């Protein structure tokens, strides 16, 4: 077989953690190769080594039969390996063109930047991706999906032999994912080898030729995708069978008719005239395409962003919510979509992150924090949510993405709120952990907590929701009953369709 990449005994240690332990396997020329594994299995770390971000502690790898070692990402790029990182690496205040050509600027003969040429070439590249947006805007003002396109454009605008995608679909929905798949097909046809990391096994089955499983930093196996079922893959990853990720919905709803939250006419620059209600013990799924304003709606609801108009009633009583503090005092809390920029204080320990919103409750009359109670609550959360960490004193930034997400969940669940709003709660989370999070949400609902769950994963919305609210262009397009909702129906409304 013609192997483009050969890895031999790659080991990588960080202070206190060995992320990779003697990993060896091969990538064939021209294939789409998936890497799967639980959160913290070492996928991203391995990719960072291949792309020159990290150097391995020991071990070696060969590109086209030649032993290589990259001291920085540029060297890797020049040798033909590019990566689209799991965490975006864009410059917020530069525009799209400037980001795409960062470090590879095209110059005129006189040495000055050739802005026109770069712009034209960037437009060309983005056309290949079927992406269309204002190239002059600083990318901080673009939606997450569009930022993702810039990342991809950046990588494919270089001639590359191996292109690594580290969870590219985590912030994409429907159409955009299809565009991405088409792009991957084209790249493959052009002879580019692709390494693809994702927690979405359907995607992997759809586009990958082979897959490699990592578990706890160790190599488990490499298989032809065609020759294995989803069940088998899950078992290799998690080490156990997962039959049904979504917990049973209760057949009869014990709190059916108690309305807990009524929202009327939320309007601001991103959303208009949003009204709905939420029952006690209900899980309300919110579906919609990227940019449909789901995040904006809930941010306006909890007062994280201003609203021009808004009426909120809790248990029938009018509530004034001007900021997240008010929301919390009314028992509403928003678990934000971006764990790094909105959820965590990366330099703080897991413990201090989890206890942050409840410090007042953990303090005595003199306002002194009761350390013992704090430890108890935190340790319980770590245990309940199976957060994988050497200790509660570990800094949040040293956790894998999935475990960071669990810390974020723990942080807000402990506030004892009646209304929990989850914005993309399982983004980037492995299937085992997802199952736990779904279980947790269902248990909370069964205890009478009301839940709003925004998700870009339709199966998740369909599998969990009692009702589904579909948004389109900042408005409520439809409210569907959970049992009647189907993939087709939701997509119909999400793309602007009206009553069938």
């Amino acid at each position, binding site marked *: 077989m013609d192997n483009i990449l050969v890895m031999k005994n790659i080991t990588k240690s960080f202070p206190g953690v060995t992320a990779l332990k003697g990993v060896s396997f091969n990538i064939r020329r021209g294939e789409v190769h998936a890497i799967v594994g639980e959160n913290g299995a070492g996928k991203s770390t391995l990719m960072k080594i291949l792309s020159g971000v990290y150097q391995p502690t020991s071990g070696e790898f060969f590109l086209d039969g030649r032993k290589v070692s990259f001291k920085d990402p540029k060297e890797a790029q020049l040798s033909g390996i590019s990566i689209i990182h799991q965490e975006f690496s864009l410059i917020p205040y530069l525009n799209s063109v400037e980001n795409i050509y960062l470090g590879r600027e095209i110059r005129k003969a006189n040495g000055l930047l050739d802005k026109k040429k770069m712009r034209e070439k960037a437009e060309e590249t983005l056309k290949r991706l079927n992406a269309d947006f204002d190239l002059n805007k600083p990318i901080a003002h673009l939606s997450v999906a569009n930022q993702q396109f810039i990342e991809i454009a950046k990588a494919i605008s270089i001639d590359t032999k191996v292109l690594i995608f580290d969870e590219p679909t985590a912030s994409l929905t429907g159409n955009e994912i299809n565009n991405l798949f088409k792009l991957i097909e084209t790249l493959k046809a052009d002879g580019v080898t692709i390494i693809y990391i994702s927690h979405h096994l359907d995607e992997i089955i759809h586009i990958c030729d082979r897959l490699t499983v990592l578990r706890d930093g160790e190599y488990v196996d490499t298989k032809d995708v065609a020759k294995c079922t989803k069940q088998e893959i899950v078992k290799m990853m998690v080490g156990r069978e997962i039959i049904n990720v979504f917990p049973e919905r209760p057949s009869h709803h014990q709190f059916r008719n108690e309305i807990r939250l009524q929202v009327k006419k939320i309007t601001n620059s991103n959303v208009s005239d949003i009204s709905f209600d939420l029952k006690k013990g209900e899980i309300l799924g919110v579906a919609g395409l990227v940019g449909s304003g789901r995040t904006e709606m809930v941010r306006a609801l909890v007062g994280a962003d201003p609203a021009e108009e808004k009426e909120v009633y809790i248990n029938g009583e009018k509530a004034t919510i001007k900021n997240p503090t008010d929301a*919390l005092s009314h028992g509403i809390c928003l678990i934000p979509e971006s764990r790094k920029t*909105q959820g*965590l*204080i*990366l330099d*703080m320990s897991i413990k201090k992150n989890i206890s942050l*919103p409840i410090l007042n409750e953990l303090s005595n009359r003199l*306002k002194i924090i009761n350390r013992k109670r704090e430890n108890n609550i935190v340790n319980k959360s770590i245990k309940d949510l199976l957060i994988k960490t050497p200790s509660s004193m570990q800094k949040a930034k040293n956790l894998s993405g999935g475990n960071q997400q669990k810390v974020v969940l723990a942080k807000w669940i402990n506030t004892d709120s009646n209304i929990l709003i989850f914005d993309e709660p399982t983004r980037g989370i492995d299937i085992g952990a997802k199952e736990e999070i779904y279980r947790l949400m269902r248990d909370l609902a069964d205890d009478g907590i009301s839940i709003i769950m925004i998700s870009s994963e339709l199966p998740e919305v369909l599998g969990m929701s009692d009702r589904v609210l579909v948004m389109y262009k900042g408005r409520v397009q439809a409210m569907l009953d959970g049992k009647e909702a189907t993939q087709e129906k939701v997509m119909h409304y999400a793309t602007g369709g009206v009553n069938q």
Partner: protein
Amino acid sequence: MNGLTMKRNYKEMFKTPEMLTLIGFFVLCIIFSVVSEEFLSLTNVSNIIRQVSINGILAVGMTFVILTGGIDLSVGSVMALTGTIMAGMMINVGLPPFAAVLVGIILGAVIGYINGAFTAYARIPAIIVTLAMMEIARGAALLYTGGYPLSGLPASYSFIGQGYLFGVIPMPAVIMIIVFVVAYIILNHLPLGRYIYAIGGNEEAVRLSGIKVKRIKASVYLISGITAGIAGAIMSSRLSSGQPMAGEGYELDAIAAVVLGGTSIAGGRGHIFGTLLGALLLGVLSNGLNLLGVSPYVQRVLKGAIIIGAIYYSSIRQKD
């Protein structure tokens, strides 16, 4: 395994910036006590602590501000203004020292709160707000006194700045230690302290946690105003007068103490006792160089070089 972790923690403790400042501090002390016989005498040690106290107290407020990712350039001027107002309250208004000091500290708090309000609520960069306040407070002190130092303070007032507790511990040092202990409790045992660290780490995450970020951001400047007021009391008592031009450049010394003490200038990380160490290190440095009779010009060069050297050395150690 547990023993190993212990050992590792123990080893890592020696790599924290505070610990390195501590080592630097002891190294300096050893050098100075070898080359100068007076250095370790009781009177000199109490000398050093007294000299350090004003900068130490200002640096406490500065630590709060820097932990949130801010900066307060107005502390020197605010100290001068509060000091002259205190003197004025005693001399012209006839308030008793205690009341006059209170008025001055309240004034410091108000000015600090104004800094904080513009920074937190109006979102103007702290460096600009406090730079402007530095000019305003200095101008106000000069206007209030007409440029003259205000002298003729009651004799009893000199106790704060010149007196001794139990006959040996200089009062400024006592006050400084109280300020540090209070700061320690706030930062390490109260929710407020956690919030301050957290805001320096990720403000948006704290806001979404339902915490009133702006109020806390404003409060750190208020705290810095209070410490400037306390320093103003000590200063006016030490100089037996309200000096409108006192404290020029003190903001930079306070920042140096905080950063030498290992607090990240970007906020979110640091320790209040690191700041104490930083202030002591700076104090020992200038005392020692004075004792050795080093020329003032050479002192400036050495002081700068030693600060860079100390931090450079500590940064190398941390990387190992």
